[in-house]
């Protein structure tokens, strides 16, 4: 193997860039995995089977508007995740979704208790629930 000083400088430079970008991407993937685990706090078993809140197309449309105003900049306009996690097919109860909206997640998601009232939180919950099958 040639000593580094005798190798082509541009080749070594490109190799260094590849190592740097791959390392940072790996670091990012590890952070992402950790954040996703933390964000999807596992609900208690009895929370999985709670009855769902009655919903309607109007409620979902209203929830979608609220989502775009308050949530899309972290969860993405299509709710498929950005800084925050993908909200499609979350396997938690409506109460669990509402509680997360109301209380937030320490250091990850703000509380919306002061910004949104019960009807708005219900609409948002209905919207998130509507993403189940999409």
């Amino acid at each position, binding site marked *: 193997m040639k000593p580094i000083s005798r190798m082509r400088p541009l080749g070594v*430079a490109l190799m260094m*860039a590849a190592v740097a970008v791959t390392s940072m991407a790996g670091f990012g993937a590890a952070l*992402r995995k950790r954040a996703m685990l933390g964000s999807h706090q596992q609900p208690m078993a009895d929370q999985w089977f709670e009855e769902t809140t009655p919903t309607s197309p109007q409620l979902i449309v209203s929830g979608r508007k609220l989502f775009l105003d308050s949530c899309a*900049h972290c969860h*993405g306009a299509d709710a498929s*995740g950005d800084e925050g996690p993908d909200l499609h097919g979350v396997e938690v109860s409506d109460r669990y979704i509402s509680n997360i909206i109301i209380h937030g997640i320490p250091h990850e998601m703000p509380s919306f208790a002061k910004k949104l009232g019960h009807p708005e939180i219900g609409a948002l919950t209905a919207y998130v629930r509507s993403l189940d099958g999409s």
Partner: protein
Amino acid sequence: MDAGFWTKLHGATTHFPIALTLCSGVFDVTGFALANRPIGRDLNAAGYWAMILGALGSLPAVISGLVLTKGVIIGHGVVRMHHLFAWPAFALLVTLATWRAMLGRQAARSTFIGYLAGVVIAAGLISAAGYWGGEMLIAR
């Protein structure tokens, strides 16, 4: 810890590689144009160190950005636009700094012209990444 700590740290650290890359480009192009004068060599040295420090400064900027976004590599919307420029800029900065360090301060003229072209592209990419970073703050 302050909830905005990583936002502030990313905002602080990103300005070093942006400023140093732009300065490096200006110093090197001016130094290249004035190569026959003593100040040309000084500008060349300034461009050299600005590039090395700019590439080193990009590491805390990238790390703080990754921690801030909890590991988002590309993302959506404005974040996506920021990342589409920031990652190539980071790769190019590391490439240029390593290349320059290996070439030393006295490179062949044709090689140096290629290097300068890379610096101009890196300056454009990092400026665009900075612009979309600013747009992110406005979007929030």
